[in-house]
C-alpha cells in the first residue's frame, strides 16, 4: 500500500511537534510542576547541554570504556550464541532440552549475575582495570549468547516445508544442507535476535558497571553523580547513554537493511 504524502508528512510533523511541546514545557518548568520536582534534580535542557559541552574529554573517556564492554560483549556473545544454536541444531532432541535450560538464564536478573561474574574473575589479571573490563564483557556476552542461541536455533530449524526433503532428494550431505539451506534461513532470525540483543547489551553494560571494581563507564557515572547529588552531571551522562542506545540501534537497522535488503525480508 502506498502511503499518501499527507500521511507521511503528518507522521513526521506530529511526533516532532510533540517533542517540541515537551521541550518547551521542560524549559519553562511546567514539567517540573506536573512531576512535583525542582530544577536541581531535574535540570533544564540548556544546563545539561552546557555540562555536556564542558566535559567532553571526560565523557569520551567513559563512553569509550562503556563501548568496549557493549561491543566486545555483543560480538563474543553473538558468536558464542550462534555456535550453541548450530550445535543444538545438529542434534535437535538434546539441543532443545539444552536450549530450554539456557532460556532460564533469560530470567536471571542482571543485578544478580554481575556480582557473581565479578567475583569469579578476580584472578584474571593483577590490573584492576583489565579484570573489571573482562568481567563486564562476560556479563554482556552471557546475556547476548542466551538470546542469540534461542533466536538462531529457530532460524536454523524452522525451514520451509519440504525444503530439507528436497535437498535430501538431491543427495545433499549435511554440510551442504547447512550451508545452502539452514545458514541462509537463519539470517533474518539473527537480526530479529539482534533487535533484542543490542538494547540489552547497552543496559547490561551500564548495570555491570554499577558493581565493577574499577570505577569507569557511563552507567557508573550516572549512579555516582547522583550519590554525590550532582544531578545535572548525571543527566548529562543519561543523555549520552540514550544517545548510545539510539545510535547503536540505528546502526543495526542500517546493517540489517544492507544485508537483508535484496534477499531477505524481516
Amino acid at each position, binding site marked *: 500500500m502506498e502511503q499518501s504524502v499527507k500521511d507521511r508528512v*503528518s507522521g513526521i510533523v506530529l511526533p516532532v511537534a510533540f517533542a517540541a511541546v515537551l521541550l518547551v514545557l521542560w524549559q519553562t518548568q511546567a514539567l517540573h510542576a506536573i512531576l512535583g520536582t525542582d530544577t536541581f534534580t531535574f535540570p533544564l535542557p540548556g544546563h545539561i547541554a552546557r555540562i555536556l559541552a564542558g566535559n567532553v574529554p571526560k565523557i569520551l573517556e567513559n563512553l569509550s570504556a562503556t563501548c568496549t564492554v557493549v561491543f566486545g560483549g555483543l560480538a563474543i556473545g553473538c558468536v558464542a550464541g550462534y555456535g550453541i544454536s548450530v550445535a543444538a541444531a545438529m542434534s535437535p532432541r538434546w539441543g532443545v532440552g539444552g536450549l530450554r535450560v539456557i532460556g532460564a538464564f533469560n*530470567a536471571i536478573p542482571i543485578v544478580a549475575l554481575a556480582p557473581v561474574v565479578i567475583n569469579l574473575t578476580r584472578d584474571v589479571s593483577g590490573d584492576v582495570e583489565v579484570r573489571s573490563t573482562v568481567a563486564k564483557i562476560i556479563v554482556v556476552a552471557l546475556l547476548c549468547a542466551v538470546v542469540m542461541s534461542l533466536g538462531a536455533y529457530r532460524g536454523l530449524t524452522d525451514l520451509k516445508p519440504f525444503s530439507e526433503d528436497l535437498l535430501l532428494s538431491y543427495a545433499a550431505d549435511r554440510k551442504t544442507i547447512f550451508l545452502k539451506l539452514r545458514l541462509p534461513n537463519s539470517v533474518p532470525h539473527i537480526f530479529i535476535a539482534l533487535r533484542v540483543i543490542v538494547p540489552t547489551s547497552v543496559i547490561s553494560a551500564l548495570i555491570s558497571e554499577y*558493581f565493577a571494581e574499577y570505577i569507569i563507564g557511563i552507567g557508573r557515572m550516572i549512579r555516582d553523580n547522583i550519590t554525590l547529588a550532582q544531578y545535572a552531571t548525571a543527566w548529562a551522562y543519561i543523555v549520552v547513554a540514550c544517545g548510545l542506545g*539510539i545510535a547503536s540501534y540505528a546502526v543495526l537497522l542500517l546493517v540489517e537493511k544492507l544485508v537483508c535488503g535484496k534477499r531477505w525480508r524481516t
Partner: protein
Amino acid sequence: MAQPRVHFTSSNLFITLVWIAILVCAWEIGAAYIETVKRTPENVLPHLWQIVQSVFSDKAVAGGLTARQIVLNAAAATLARAGIGFAIGTGIGFGLALLMKLSGIVEKIAFPYLMIIQMIPILGMAPIVLGITGDIGQSRIVIAAILTFYPVAANTLAGLKSVEPEKDSLFLSYAATRPQTYVKLYIPVALPYFFTGMKIAAPLAITASILVDTLQGDGGLGCMLSQSLKHAMSIFVFWQIVFFSAIVGVLSINAVTLAERLALPNERRARKWSKA
C-alpha cells in the same frame, strides 16, 4: 486423545533433567576447585549444598533473623512493588495500544516514541527516577511500570492490527457499533498478543524492582544483596537471593502462561487443532 507412550529416557523431561545435572556437576567441580585455591571460597563459588543448607539453617545472621527470613521479608517488599508496577504498566500499555488503534493522530505521535523507548536504557535511569520521586517504593513502581508498558503496548498494538479487514467489514455489515466491534472482535484477537507482551515484561519488572533496591537501603532484595556483598551479613544471603530471583523470574513467566490458559481456554484448544 491417547498419547503414544514414550520411554522415559527419550522424554523431554529426562533430557532437561540431564542438562540440569550437567550444570550442577560443572558448578560442583568449579566449587571444589575454588575450595582448594581460595581462603574464603564461599565468596566466589560455594557448594550448592552449602546454599541449600543455609536456607534451612536456623542460625541468625543479622538482627536476630535467619537468612531465610531476611530473604523472604525482602522479597515481599520488592515483589509487591514489582507487582504494582507491572499492573500499572500493563494497564497503561493496553490502554495506549487501544488509543493508538482508535486514533490515527495518537498513533502517529506515540509510535516513534514507542520505538525510541526500547532503545533507551531505562534501567540506567533508575537513579534519576529515585532522585525525582525521592521515595524508593515509588521509584520501584515507576521503573517497573515503564519497563512493562513498552512490550505490552507494542504487542497489543500488533494484535489489534492483525485483525483482517474482511472481519471488520463483516461486523459493519451486521450493523455492529464500534464498541461492539472492539469488544467482540479486536480485543479477543489481540489478547494472545497481549499475553505475549506480559510474558516479556514480567521478568523485566522484577529485575527493575531489584535493581532499584540496590540504590538505597530500604530492605528490598537488591538492598540485602548489596549489603551481603559488602559482608554486612552472611554471604549466603547473597547466594540465596541469586537463586531466589532466578527462580521467581522463571515462575513469573509461568504465572502469566497460567493466567493466559485460564483466560483463553479456547485459544489453546484452537492452537492444538491447528497443529494437528
